[in-house]
Protein backbone atom coordinates (compact mmCIF):
# COMPACT_ATOMS: atom_id res chain seq x y z
CA UNK A 1 0.00 0.00 0.00
CA UNK A 2 1.43 3.41 -0.96
CA UNK A 3 1.76 6.32 1.48
CA UNK A 4 -1.06 8.12 -0.39
CA UNK A 5 -3.53 5.55 0.83
CA UNK A 6 -2.06 5.33 4.31
CA UNK A 7 -1.45 9.00 5.15
CA UNK A 8 -3.69 12.07 4.96
CA UNK A 9 -2.60 14.87 2.64
CA UNK A 10 -4.27 17.98 4.07
CA UNK A 11 -3.42 19.35 7.46
CA UNK A 12 -4.91 22.30 9.33
CA UNK A 13 -3.66 23.23 12.76
CA UNK A 14 -4.27 25.86 15.39
CA UNK A 15 -1.57 26.54 17.93
CA UNK A 16 -0.54 28.88 20.67
CA UNK A 17 2.95 29.72 21.78
CA UNK A 18 4.91 32.15 23.87
CA UNK A 19 5.18 35.69 22.48
CA UNK A 20 8.82 36.21 23.47
CA UNK A 21 10.30 36.76 20.05
CA UNK A 22 7.63 39.25 18.88
CA UNK A 23 8.08 40.99 22.23
CA UNK A 24 11.80 41.23 21.68
CA UNK A 25 11.55 42.33 18.05
CA UNK A 26 9.07 45.10 18.81
CA UNK A 27 10.97 46.27 21.86
CA UNK A 28 8.32 45.19 24.37
CA UNK A 29 11.11 43.57 26.31
CA UNK A 30 14.70 44.79 26.48
CA UNK A 31 13.66 48.25 25.21
CA UNK A 32 13.78 49.87 21.81
CA UNK A 33 17.52 50.21 21.57
CA UNK A 34 19.17 53.56 22.16
CA UNK A 35 16.86 56.05 23.76
CA UNK A 36 16.24 59.48 22.36
CA UNK A 37 18.75 62.15 23.44
CA UNK A 38 16.16 64.03 25.48
CA UNK A 39 14.91 60.88 27.19
CA UNK A 40 18.32 60.65 28.80
CA UNK A 41 18.06 64.01 30.39
CA UNK A 42 16.26 63.34 33.63
CA UNK A 43 15.04 66.90 34.08
CA UNK A 44 13.16 66.86 30.74
CA UNK A 45 11.35 63.72 31.86
CA UNK A 46 9.72 65.64 34.68
CA UNK A 47 7.38 67.12 32.10
CA UNK A 48 6.25 63.79 30.68
CA UNK A 49 3.29 61.76 31.89
CA UNK A 50 3.40 61.20 35.62
CA UNK A 51 1.86 57.81 35.24
CA UNK A 52 2.19 54.14 35.95
CA UNK A 53 1.70 51.27 33.53
CA UNK A 54 -0.50 48.26 33.07
CA UNK A 55 0.75 45.86 30.42
CA UNK A 56 -0.60 42.63 29.00
CA UNK A 57 -0.05 40.39 26.03
CA UNK A 58 -1.79 37.56 24.26
CA UNK A 59 0.02 34.35 23.37
CA UNK A 60 1.24 33.93 19.81
CA UNK A 61 -1.84 32.46 18.14
CA UNK A 62 -1.34 30.75 14.82
CA UNK A 63 -3.30 28.89 12.23
CA UNK A 64 -1.68 26.97 9.42
CA UNK A 65 -2.50 24.85 6.48
CA UNK A 66 -0.14 22.34 4.86
CA UNK A 67 -0.39 19.99 1.96
CA UNK A 68 1.65 16.80 1.80
CA UNK A 69 3.42 16.70 -1.56
CA UNK A 70 5.44 13.60 -0.84
CA UNK A 71 5.50 11.25 2.10
CA UNK A 72 7.93 13.51 3.98
CA UNK A 73 7.57 16.95 2.38
CA UNK A 74 4.77 19.42 3.06
CA UNK A 75 4.07 22.86 1.67
CA UNK A 76 1.68 25.43 3.09
CA UNK A 77 1.22 28.74 4.83
CA UNK A 78 0.94 30.06 8.37
CA UNK A 79 -0.81 33.05 9.84
CA UNK A 80 0.18 34.16 13.32
CA UNK A 81 -1.02 36.94 15.61
CA UNK A 82 0.20 38.44 18.88
CA UNK A 83 -1.06 41.53 20.66
CA UNK A 84 0.66 43.68 23.29
CA UNK A 85 -1.41 46.12 25.29
CA UNK A 86 -0.22 48.99 27.44
CA UNK A 87 -2.38 51.42 29.39
CA UNK A 88 -1.01 54.32 31.39
CA UNK A 89 -2.78 55.81 34.36
CA UNK A 90 -2.15 59.17 35.99
CA UNK A 91 -0.36 58.51 39.28
CA UNK A 92 -2.44 61.02 41.21
CA UNK A 93 -5.92 60.86 39.68
CA UNK A 94 -5.73 57.25 38.47
CA UNK A 95 -7.39 58.30 35.20
CA UNK A 96 -6.25 56.50 32.06
CA UNK A 97 -3.96 58.85 30.14
CA UNK A 98 -3.00 56.71 27.18
CA UNK A 99 -3.36 53.29 25.64
CA UNK A 100 -1.24 51.51 23.08
CA UNK A 101 -1.97 48.32 21.16
CA UNK A 102 0.67 46.50 19.16
CA UNK A 103 -0.83 43.93 16.79
CA UNK A 104 1.84 41.74 15.25
CA UNK A 105 0.65 39.73 12.30
CA UNK A 106 2.78 37.37 10.22
CA UNK A 107 1.87 35.63 6.97
CA UNK A 108 4.46 33.05 6.05
CA UNK A 109 4.79 30.35 3.39
CA UNK A 110 5.90 27.16 5.15
CA UNK A 111 7.63 23.91 4.48
CA UNK A 112 7.66 20.87 6.72
CA UNK A 113 9.82 17.78 6.67
CA UNK A 114 8.17 14.87 8.45
CA UNK A 115 10.96 12.45 9.16
CA UNK A 116 8.95 9.90 11.11
CA UNK A 117 5.55 8.99 9.76
CA UNK A 118 3.77 6.41 11.88
CA UNK A 119 0.08 5.73 12.13
CA UNK A 120 -0.42 7.81 15.28
CA UNK A 121 2.84 9.69 15.66
CA UNK A 122 4.60 12.10 13.31
CA UNK A 123 7.93 13.78 14.03
CA UNK A 124 8.93 16.73 11.88
CA UNK A 125 10.93 19.89 11.43
CA UNK A 126 10.02 22.96 9.45
CA UNK A 127 10.63 26.47 8.30
CA UNK A 128 8.32 29.42 7.66
CA UNK A 129 9.52 32.65 6.17
CA UNK A 130 7.41 35.59 5.09
CA UNK A 131 5.99 38.98 5.90
CA UNK A 132 5.31 40.49 9.31
CA UNK A 133 3.62 43.73 10.22
CA UNK A 134 3.39 45.53 13.56
CA UNK A 135 0.29 47.70 13.63
CA UNK A 136 0.58 50.23 16.44
CA UNK A 137 -2.52 52.01 17.68
CA UNK A 138 -1.95 54.81 20.16
CA UNK A 139 -4.51 56.97 21.91
CA UNK A 140 -4.00 59.61 24.56
CA UNK A 141 -5.89 62.68 25.69
CA UNK A 142 -4.05 64.81 23.15
CA UNK A 143 -3.29 62.54 20.23
CA UNK A 144 -4.47 59.47 18.42
CA UNK A 145 -2.66 57.68 15.66
CA UNK A 146 -2.17 54.37 13.98
CA UNK A 147 1.01 53.34 12.27
CA UNK A 148 2.52 50.19 10.82
CA UNK A 149 6.02 48.82 10.70
CA UNK A 150 6.87 46.11 8.22
CA UNK A 151 9.45 43.38 8.41
CA UNK A 152 10.29 39.73 8.00
CA UNK A 153 8.47 37.02 9.90
CA UNK A 154 9.91 33.58 10.41
CA UNK A 155 9.51 30.37 12.35
CA UNK A 156 12.13 27.68 12.51
CA UNK A 157 10.78 24.49 14.00
CA UNK A 158 13.55 22.29 15.33
CA UNK A 159 11.35 19.43 16.42
CA UNK A 160 7.62 18.93 16.31
CA UNK A 161 5.46 16.00 17.25
CA UNK A 162 1.90 15.11 16.24
CA UNK A 163 0.03 12.55 18.26
CA UNK A 164 -3.30 11.30 16.95
CA UNK A 165 -4.78 10.34 13.64
CA UNK A 166 -7.51 12.45 12.11
CA UNK A 167 -7.63 14.82 15.06
CA UNK A 168 -4.33 15.24 16.76
CA UNK A 169 -2.49 17.30 19.29
CA UNK A 170 0.95 18.73 18.63
CA UNK A 171 3.90 20.38 20.33
CA UNK A 172 6.78 22.17 18.69
CA UNK A 173 10.10 23.55 19.85
CA UNK A 174 11.76 26.21 17.76
CA UNK A 175 12.26 29.91 17.36
CA UNK A 176 10.16 32.54 15.68
CA UNK A 177 6.93 34.47 15.59
CA UNK A 178 4.94 31.48 16.82
CA UNK A 179 7.05 31.07 19.94
CA UNK A 180 9.89 29.03 21.33
CA UNK A 181 7.36 26.46 22.46
CA UNK A 182 4.09 25.99 20.70
CA UNK A 183 1.21 23.58 21.24
CA UNK A 184 -2.20 23.06 19.74
CA UNK A 185 -4.40 20.73 17.85
CA UNK A 186 -5.04 19.98 14.23
CA UNK A 187 -6.89 17.92 11.73
CA UNK A 188 -5.64 15.68 8.93
CA UNK A 189 -7.91 14.83 6.08
CA UNK A 190 -8.03 13.83 2.44
CA UNK A 191 -10.07 15.61 -0.17
CA UNK A 192 -13.16 13.72 -1.25
CA UNK A 193 -12.80 12.00 -4.61
CA UNK A 194 -15.67 11.96 -7.02
Amino acid sequence: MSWKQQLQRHDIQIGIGDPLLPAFVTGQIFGHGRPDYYEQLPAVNWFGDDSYKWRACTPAISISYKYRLTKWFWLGATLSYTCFLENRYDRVTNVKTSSERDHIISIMPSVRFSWLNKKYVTLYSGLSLGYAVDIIQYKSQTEKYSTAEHGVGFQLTAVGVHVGRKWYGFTEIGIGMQGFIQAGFGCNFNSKKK
Partner: protein
Amino acid sequence: MKKYIIIIIAIALVCVGCYREQRSKLTQRGKEIHDSWLMYSQEMIEKTIVPVFQMDAWIGGNDSIRRIIEDNYFPYLRVREEATNEFAFYDGAQKILTVNTNGYALADNGASWLVSINNARTYESDYGQIPMFLAYPSQWRLFISKTGNQQWNISLDTTRSMGSKCDWKLSLPANDTIVYFSQQEFSLAGNGTFKYAGDVYLRYHIDETLQHQGKQYPWNRGVVSMIARFIDPETNEIPTDDIHVKAEYTGDGIKITYRNITETWEFEKRH
Protein backbone atom coordinates in the same frame (compact mmCIF):
# COMPACT_ATOMS: atom_id res chain seq x y z
CA MET B 1 -9.31 15.44 22.38
CA LYS B 2 -10.57 16.86 25.67
CA LYS B 3 -7.07 16.47 27.09
CA TYR B 4 -5.57 18.52 24.27
CA ILE B 5 -8.06 21.30 24.68
CA ILE B 6 -7.33 21.46 28.40
CA ILE B 7 -3.58 21.53 27.71
CA ILE B 8 -4.02 24.28 25.12
CA ILE B 9 -6.11 26.39 27.47
CA ALA B 10 -3.48 25.89 30.17
CA ILE B 11 -0.68 26.96 27.82
CA ALA B 12 -2.73 29.95 26.65
CA LEU B 13 -3.15 31.05 30.24
CA VAL B 14 0.57 30.69 30.86
CA CYS B 15 1.41 32.69 27.74
CA VAL B 16 -0.96 35.56 28.51
CA GLY B 17 1.18 38.01 30.39
CA CYS B 18 -0.09 40.80 32.59
CA TYR B 19 1.97 43.26 34.56
CA ARG B 20 0.91 46.21 36.64
CA GLU B 21 3.58 48.69 37.68
CA GLN B 22 3.54 49.74 41.30
CA ARG B 23 1.73 53.05 41.64
CA SER B 24 4.06 54.05 44.49
CA LYS B 25 3.71 57.37 46.29
CA LEU B 26 1.63 60.06 44.63
CA THR B 27 4.27 62.74 45.12
CA GLN B 28 7.04 60.65 43.58
CA ARG B 29 7.62 63.11 40.73
CA GLY B 30 7.80 65.98 43.21
CA LYS B 31 10.31 64.03 45.28
CA GLU B 32 12.46 63.46 42.17
CA ILE B 33 12.50 67.20 41.51
CA HIS B 34 13.33 67.92 45.12
CA ASP B 35 16.09 65.29 45.10
CA SER B 36 17.60 66.89 42.04
CA TRP B 37 17.57 70.31 43.67
CA LEU B 38 19.03 68.82 46.82
CA MET B 39 21.78 67.04 44.93
CA TYR B 40 22.92 70.16 43.10
CA SER B 41 22.66 72.48 46.07
CA GLN B 42 24.52 69.95 48.22
CA GLU B 43 27.06 69.66 45.45
CA MET B 44 27.65 73.40 45.58
CA ILE B 45 27.97 73.35 49.35
CA GLU B 46 30.05 70.20 49.79
CA LYS B 47 32.23 70.41 46.69
CA THR B 48 32.68 74.15 46.46
CA ILE B 49 31.81 76.18 49.52
CA VAL B 50 33.12 73.81 52.20
CA PRO B 51 36.52 73.38 50.50
CA VAL B 52 36.76 77.15 50.12
CA PHE B 53 36.26 77.63 53.85
CA GLN B 54 38.80 74.90 54.52
CA MET B 55 41.19 76.60 52.15
CA ASP B 56 40.64 79.81 54.09
CA ALA B 57 41.75 78.06 57.27
CA TRP B 58 44.70 76.55 55.40
CA ILE B 59 45.84 79.94 54.07
CA GLY B 60 45.69 81.46 57.54
CA GLY B 61 47.51 78.60 59.27
CA ASN B 62 51.17 77.89 59.85
CA ASP B 63 52.85 74.79 58.42
CA SER B 64 51.77 72.41 61.17
CA ILE B 65 48.15 73.63 61.04
CA ARG B 66 48.19 73.32 57.28
CA ARG B 67 49.31 69.72 57.55
CA ILE B 68 46.55 68.95 60.05
CA ILE B 69 43.94 70.57 57.81
CA GLU B 70 45.20 68.69 54.77
CA ASP B 71 45.25 65.35 56.57
CA ASN B 72 41.82 65.81 58.10
CA TYR B 73 39.80 67.55 55.43
CA PHE B 74 41.25 66.97 52.01
CA PRO B 75 43.85 64.20 52.20
CA TYR B 76 43.61 63.58 48.44
CA LEU B 77 43.83 67.23 47.40
CA ARG B 78 46.62 69.73 47.56
CA VAL B 79 46.49 73.52 47.74
CA ARG B 80 48.89 75.46 45.55
CA GLU B 81 49.48 79.16 45.54
CA GLU B 82 49.15 80.17 41.90
CA ALA B 83 49.78 83.90 42.21
CA THR B 84 49.32 86.66 44.72
CA ASN B 85 45.93 86.09 46.38
CA GLU B 86 45.21 83.18 44.05
CA PHE B 87 45.05 79.61 45.33
CA ALA B 88 43.93 76.38 43.71
CA PHE B 89 42.92 72.89 44.75
CA TYR B 90 44.55 70.10 42.80
CA ASP B 91 43.52 66.46 42.58
CA GLY B 92 46.74 65.04 41.22
CA ALA B 93 47.42 67.13 38.14
CA GLN B 94 43.79 68.18 37.72
CA LYS B 95 42.80 71.58 38.97
CA ILE B 96 39.50 71.42 40.86
CA LEU B 97 38.90 74.94 42.12
CA THR B 98 40.62 78.26 41.82
CA VAL B 99 40.07 80.90 44.46
CA ASN B 100 40.93 84.56 44.11
CA THR B 101 40.96 86.12 47.55
CA ASN B 102 41.06 89.85 47.80
CA GLY B 103 43.71 89.66 50.46
CA TYR B 104 41.22 89.17 53.27
CA ALA B 105 40.42 86.03 55.22
CA LEU B 106 36.80 84.96 54.92
CA ALA B 107 36.16 85.87 58.53
CA ASP B 108 37.38 89.41 57.92
CA ASN B 109 35.03 92.24 57.12
CA GLY B 110 35.61 93.19 53.50
CA ALA B 111 36.32 89.61 52.37
CA SER B 112 35.15 89.09 48.80
CA TRP B 113 36.36 85.94 47.11
CA LEU B 114 35.91 84.67 43.60
CA VAL B 115 35.73 80.89 43.15
CA SER B 116 36.10 79.28 39.72
CA ILE B 117 35.07 75.68 39.28
CA ASN B 118 37.58 74.11 36.93
CA ASN B 119 36.29 70.58 36.42
CA ALA B 120 32.92 69.85 34.79
CA ARG B 121 30.72 67.35 36.53
CA THR B 122 29.27 64.99 33.94
CA TYR B 123 27.45 61.71 33.75
CA GLU B 124 27.92 58.77 31.42
CA SER B 125 25.36 58.18 28.68
CA ASP B 126 25.16 56.40 25.34
CA TYR B 127 26.18 59.70 23.78
CA GLY B 128 29.25 59.99 25.96
CA GLN B 129 29.68 62.35 28.86
CA ILE B 130 26.77 64.74 29.18
CA PRO B 131 27.04 67.74 31.48
CA MET B 132 24.61 67.81 34.37
CA PHE B 133 23.84 71.43 33.63
CA LEU B 134 23.69 73.11 30.27
CA ALA B 135 25.92 75.72 31.85
CA TYR B 136 29.06 73.71 32.32
CA PRO B 137 30.27 73.95 35.90
CA SER B 138 33.60 74.91 34.43
CA GLN B 139 31.92 78.13 33.33
CA TRP B 140 30.61 78.82 36.81
CA ARG B 141 32.13 81.41 39.06
CA LEU B 142 30.95 81.99 42.58
CA PHE B 143 31.34 85.12 44.63
CA ILE B 144 31.61 84.65 48.38
CA SER B 145 31.60 87.84 50.37
CA LYS B 146 31.24 88.55 54.03
CA THR B 147 28.12 90.56 54.74
CA GLY B 148 27.88 90.43 58.53
CA ASN B 149 28.91 88.64 61.66
CA GLN B 150 29.38 84.98 60.66
CA GLN B 151 27.32 85.68 57.55
CA TRP B 152 28.29 85.43 53.90
CA ASN B 153 26.60 86.14 50.64
CA ILE B 154 27.11 83.56 47.90
CA SER B 155 26.18 84.39 44.34
CA LEU B 156 26.82 83.05 40.86
CA ASP B 157 28.51 85.10 38.21
CA THR B 158 25.47 85.42 35.94
CA THR B 159 27.49 86.42 32.90
CA ARG B 160 29.08 82.97 32.85
CA SER B 161 26.53 80.65 34.44
CA MET B 162 24.24 80.78 31.36
CA GLY B 163 20.90 80.77 33.11
CA SER B 164 21.79 79.35 36.49
CA LYS B 165 21.55 81.86 39.31
CA CYS B 166 22.21 81.83 42.99
CA ASP B 167 21.72 84.37 45.72
CA TRP B 168 22.36 82.64 49.02
CA LYS B 169 22.90 83.88 52.52
CA LEU B 170 24.96 81.53 54.60
CA SER B 171 25.15 81.88 58.37
CA LEU B 172 27.26 80.15 60.98
CA PRO B 173 26.67 80.29 64.71
CA ALA B 174 28.95 82.64 66.62
CA ASN B 175 32.36 81.35 67.69
CA ASP B 176 32.18 78.22 65.54
CA THR B 177 35.28 77.35 63.64
CA ILE B 178 34.37 77.32 60.01
CA VAL B 179 36.77 74.53 59.19
CA TYR B 180 34.29 72.06 60.67
CA PHE B 181 31.68 73.55 58.42
CA SER B 182 30.14 70.39 56.99
CA GLN B 183 29.71 68.81 60.39
CA GLN B 184 28.35 71.72 62.32
CA GLU B 185 25.33 73.95 62.46
CA PHE B 186 24.77 76.40 59.70
CA SER B 187 21.81 77.90 57.90
CA LEU B 188 21.02 78.91 54.37
CA ALA B 189 18.50 81.38 52.96
CA GLY B 190 17.96 82.90 49.54
CA ASN B 191 16.91 81.77 46.10
CA GLY B 192 18.25 80.79 42.73
CA THR B 193 17.83 78.83 39.53
CA PHE B 194 19.50 75.69 38.30
CA LYS B 195 19.51 75.31 34.57
CA TYR B 196 19.64 71.73 33.31
CA ALA B 197 20.58 70.26 29.97
CA GLY B 198 17.51 70.19 27.72
CA ASP B 199 16.52 73.74 28.71
CA VAL B 200 14.86 72.93 31.99
CA TYR B 201 14.96 75.61 34.63
CA LEU B 202 14.44 74.82 38.30
CA ARG B 203 13.72 78.03 40.13
CA TYR B 204 13.72 77.79 43.91
CA HIS B 205 13.11 80.00 46.88
CA ILE B 206 13.98 79.18 50.46
CA ASP B 207 10.77 80.20 52.25
CA GLU B 208 12.01 79.32 55.72
CA THR B 209 15.73 79.29 56.43
CA LEU B 210 17.25 75.86 55.96
CA GLN B 211 18.99 74.61 59.08
CA HIS B 212 21.80 72.12 59.04
CA GLN B 213 22.66 70.47 62.34
CA GLY B 214 25.72 68.36 62.86
CA LYS B 215 25.68 65.32 60.64
CA GLN B 216 21.94 65.53 60.13
CA TYR B 217 21.32 65.00 56.47
CA PRO B 218 20.44 66.90 54.44
CA TRP B 219 18.57 69.67 56.26
CA ASN B 220 17.03 69.54 59.66
CA ARG B 221 14.48 72.32 59.32
CA GLY B 222 13.31 74.73 56.68
CA VAL B 223 11.03 75.07 53.68
CA VAL B 224 11.93 75.45 50.03
CA SER B 225 9.59 76.05 47.10
CA MET B 226 10.54 74.99 43.61
CA ILE B 227 9.14 75.67 40.15
CA ALA B 228 10.34 73.56 37.24
CA ARG B 229 9.89 75.02 33.76
CA PHE B 230 10.68 73.55 30.38
CA ILE B 231 11.42 75.95 27.53
CA ASP B 232 11.50 74.36 24.09
CA PRO B 233 14.98 75.20 22.76
CA GLU B 234 13.76 75.36 19.15
CA THR B 235 10.64 77.48 19.49
CA ASN B 236 11.56 79.20 22.75
CA GLU B 237 8.01 78.48 23.93
CA ILE B 238 6.82 76.86 27.13
CA PRO B 239 4.99 73.75 25.87
CA THR B 240 4.04 72.29 29.25
CA ASP B 241 2.73 73.57 32.54
CA ASP B 242 5.23 74.55 35.20
CA ILE B 243 5.62 72.04 38.00
CA HIS B 244 5.34 73.36 41.54
CA VAL B 245 6.94 71.49 44.41
CA LYS B 246 7.26 72.44 48.04
CA ALA B 247 9.59 70.67 50.44
CA GLU B 248 9.42 71.02 54.20
CA TYR B 249 12.11 69.43 56.33
CA THR B 250 10.76 67.98 59.56
CA GLY B 251 13.91 66.65 61.20
CA ASP B 252 13.59 62.98 60.35
CA GLY B 253 11.92 63.35 57.00
CA ILE B 254 10.51 65.68 54.44
CA LYS B 255 7.01 66.71 53.50
CA ILE B 256 6.66 67.01 49.75
CA THR B 257 3.73 68.91 48.28
CA TYR B 258 3.13 68.18 44.60
CA ARG B 259 -0.10 68.64 42.65
CA ASN B 260 -1.82 69.74 45.87
CA ILE B 261 -0.99 66.49 47.62
CA THR B 262 1.32 66.42 50.62
CA GLU B 263 3.11 63.27 51.64
CA THR B 264 5.88 62.57 54.11
CA TRP B 265 9.04 60.85 53.00
CA GLU B 266 11.35 59.56 55.67
CA PHE B 267 15.09 59.92 55.28
CA GLU B 268 17.16 56.81 55.10
CA LYS B 269 18.92 56.28 58.36
CA ARG B 270 22.61 57.17 58.26
CA HIS B 271 24.99 55.03 60.18
